[in-house]
């Protein structure tokens, strides 16, 4: 038996057709919003990713000259590099991609080491309309696959950011607090507050953050508390929500003000997509206004990436694994009629059918049931 390494998989014809179908739908929707598809290389110098990813989470290797290369763990960093170094012109720039990325992580169902991301980046504008557009686009893309029961959960990196700045915590404590908030660990946050002797106002906010999620009423709830730190954030989220409401997307939106992101390039709004019954996000995104500066051009940006395999899993669980398949037609022909048969087959192909050709003699071994229609030429 020949095995595959952990974290990679073969997609056999049925599965791959299903996957391609989803990817094509994403492409179509992205394109219809004015996003242009690009494709960076699968690997490049490791240091281009080192601002964002831990060395140990990347697949790294040497070339013959001794340079350290890495398989891309993420496309956003590559697009930031491309926009900073190669793309001139007027902003905003709208780019999209469907590409495989590679991360050295523990594997399980829905967490592979090679997986496909479909995403967009909207670069050069920091208006709330851009954030709303990108969130709306993620919803339209997910909807286009037939997915049901999903929510885009919205938070803001500055909720955590402003608390941390006020508290003057060391790096280690910041990471610990981030982890506790990520886990919504109310008991441990309580201990943290006591141990660090955190003052009343911040302590009160920290205590509430783990459960500050739900519908738009959460924004109201926090507004009433009158925290100086979160005033601006709340107004911003409110404006984004108004736009999404006008787009008719209310039912897909929820808020989580205690949300923190692991990738530390986010600076503003952050969001994640969840489907009922699937324990991990199918989509992550947000605003990253400081990333492009690292590569040489100081431009604001916002975007998201959808995990294609997770969407496949969610669709299968919702038994929406069906898609419109083209008709399969068998053209049977007598050898003397080969020319006419080929012409007939091409006409049918142009009409969008899948056509296979066999002479009557060879048809004995063909599974006729796998075809929707049989066309005979001659006899």
């Amino acid at each position, binding site marked *: 038996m020949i095995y595959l390494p952990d974290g990679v998989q073969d997609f056999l014809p049925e599965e791959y057709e299903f996957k391609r179908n989803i990817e094509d739908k994403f492409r179509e929707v992205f394109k219809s919003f004015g996003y242009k598809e690009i494709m960076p290389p699968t690997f490049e110098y490791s240091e281009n990713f080192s601002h964002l990813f831990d060395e140990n989470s990347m697949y790294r290797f040497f070339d013959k000259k001794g340079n350290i290369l890495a398989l891309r763990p993420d496309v956003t960093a590559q697009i930031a590099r491309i926009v900073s170094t190669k793309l001139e012109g007027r902003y905003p720039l709208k780019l999209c991609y469907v590409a495989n990325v590679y991360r050295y992580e523990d594997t399980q*169902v829905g967490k592979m080491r090679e997986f496909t991301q479909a995403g967009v980046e909207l670069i050069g504008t920091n208006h709330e309309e851009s954030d709303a557009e990108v969130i709306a686009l993620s919803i339209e893309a997910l909807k286009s696959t037939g997915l049901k*029961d999903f*929510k885009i*959960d919205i938070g803001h990196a500055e909720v955590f950011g402003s608390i941390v700045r006020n508290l003057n915590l060391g790096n280690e404590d910041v990471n610990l607090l981030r982890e506790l908030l990520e*886990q*919504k*660990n*109310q*008991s*441990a946050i309580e201990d943290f507050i006591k141990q660090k002797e955190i003052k009343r106002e911040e302590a009160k906010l920290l205590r509430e953050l*783990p*459960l500050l*999620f*739900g519908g738009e009423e959460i924004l109201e709830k926090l507004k009433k508390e009158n925290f100086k730190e979160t005033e601006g954030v709340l107004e911003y989220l409110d404006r984004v929500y108004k736009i999404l409401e006008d787009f008719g997307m209310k039912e897909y939106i*929820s808020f*989580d003000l205690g949300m923190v992101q692991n990738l530390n390039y986010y600076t503003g709004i952050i969001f994640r997509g*969840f*489907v*009922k*019954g*699937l*324990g*991990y*996000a199918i989509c992550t995104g947000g605003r990253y206004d400081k990333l492009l500066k690292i590569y040489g051009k100081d431009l604001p940006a916002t975007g998201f990436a959808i995990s294609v395999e997770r969407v496949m899993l969610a669709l299968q669980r919702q038994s929406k694994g069906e898609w419109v398949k083209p008709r399969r037609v068998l053209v049977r022909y007598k050898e003397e009629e080969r020319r006419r048969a080929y012409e007939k087959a091409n006409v049918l192909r142009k009409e969008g059918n899948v056509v296979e050709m066999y002479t009557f003699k060879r048809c004995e071994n063909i599974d006729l049931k796998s075809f929707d229609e049989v066309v005979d030429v001659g006899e």
Partner: protein
Amino acid sequence: MDIVSIALPKGRMTEDAVVLFKKAGISNDVLKDISRKLILEDNKNAIKFMLVKPMDVPTYVEHGAADLGVCGKDILLEQKKDLYEVLDLKFGFCRMVVAGPPNVKDSFLTNKRVATKFPNVAEEFFKKKGENVEIIKLNGSVELAPIVGLSEVIVDIVETGRTLRENGLVVIEEIFPSTARLIVNKASMKTKSERIKDIILKLREVINGG
């Protein structure tokens, strides 16, 4: 109303967990129904309990087969799953310790062997100390290992210390204390947010109130 499913660990923590949920007004007393059934339904409160091996609780919750779970911190630290760990339920107290025969106390060779049901916890602990050890994964009766010469020490959970004493072992070092935690599936928290928030608040009240 959405049904909320809760994975409970079969064994020493089952009773405490059921009592806590009842006290918080979340479910009826289902203790009397526990026999060999793996699923207990409380239709009146729209709650479904499932009884699984303690080590499997995080798996059920991470995959969304259960919305909530009750699980020891020891197991969470061993498995590092992707889920919300929202509350310390303050029961099921125990300690994760390094234990061994009394005569080896503080006088180790560098490459000692460690028998344990918690290989990740053990590895991380000794790595942080800068010690090279050989981890031997066992599935039970870990106390036997040093007695029969399979390992020098063990890393295991201790409640009262009785089992250790009965086998002539002593605690050499404490790694961390552990209690039962309430864990939540990440998608359920958002897709059934009202119900789950309500459950968390009710439990929090009971825990903090007494």
